[in-house]
């Protein structure tokens, strides 16, 4: 059957890809996409651990549910900001949004 570590490795790769996306992308939405990937990696991890270490407990699932909630909130706010920023700067490129530098 499938070993636990496989899931973990897949999650790790997913997470790495997400990180790359977050770091390398210009567009704010693209960055959000990267974030989502990272979230999913985390979810996979959590559930894998739940499944393999304590399938009887609800803790892992609850954790996942909470992550869902947080992710949803994050995206909602993120996109709202994105829209607002776009309205203000006429651009969705995070590098153009650097008012807070010296």
């Amino acid at each position: 059957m499938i070993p636990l570590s496989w899931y973990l490795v897949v999650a790790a790769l997913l997470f790495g890809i997400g990180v790359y996306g977050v770091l390398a992308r210009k567009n704010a939405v693209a960055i959000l996409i990267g974030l989502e990937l990272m979230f999913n990696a985390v979810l996979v991890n959590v559930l894998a651990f739940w499944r393999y270490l304590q399938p009887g407990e609800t803790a892992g699932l609850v954790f996942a549910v909470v992550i869902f909630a947080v992710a949803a909130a994050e995206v909602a706010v993120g996109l709202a900001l994105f829209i607002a920023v776009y309205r203000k700067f006429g651009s969705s490129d995070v590098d153009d949004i650097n008012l807070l530098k010296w």
Partner: protein
Amino acid sequence: MVTTFVFLLTAVVMLVAALIAVLKDNLVHAAMGLVVTLFGTAVLFVLMEAYFLAVAQVVIYVGAIAILIVFSIMLTRRVGAAWGAQTNPTWPFALLVAGLLTVLVTRMVRAWAPDQVLPAAAAVPADMTARLGAALVDPNGYVVPFEVASVLLLAALIGAVYVAWGGRKAEKETHK
């Protein structure tokens, strides 16, 4: 046997899709990649017998988040306009760091996780979904985190509406 096959297939597909999601300049395609990845995650959940979460994953991520993302991409673009390059000049660093991170984590996993296979004894109870529901509203269980999460969602909702609304003036602007 079958499950292993399915797992490998899914893993490959979702990783490729993830790469598409972060590499492609056409953001809509990238978003599609994201969607596929999310589906893949859902499949993994099914393999892990977390059916409820699998479906919830589809509903929330595909049904809400992904659609929102695609939506906002389309909103902020002119139809038929060309996509410029979507990556920063600093992408090599990003690649370096991400790669290092991945490698490290993977190696740690390999080093740590003895390849433990599915504990046959402890199968997932059939009524797991019911249990989860009970636990979420059980005072001795997770009612507090649950409520906190809900409040967070509410706050995010209101905040998002306010931020994106941007006041009457902005409304006028958009009407023009």
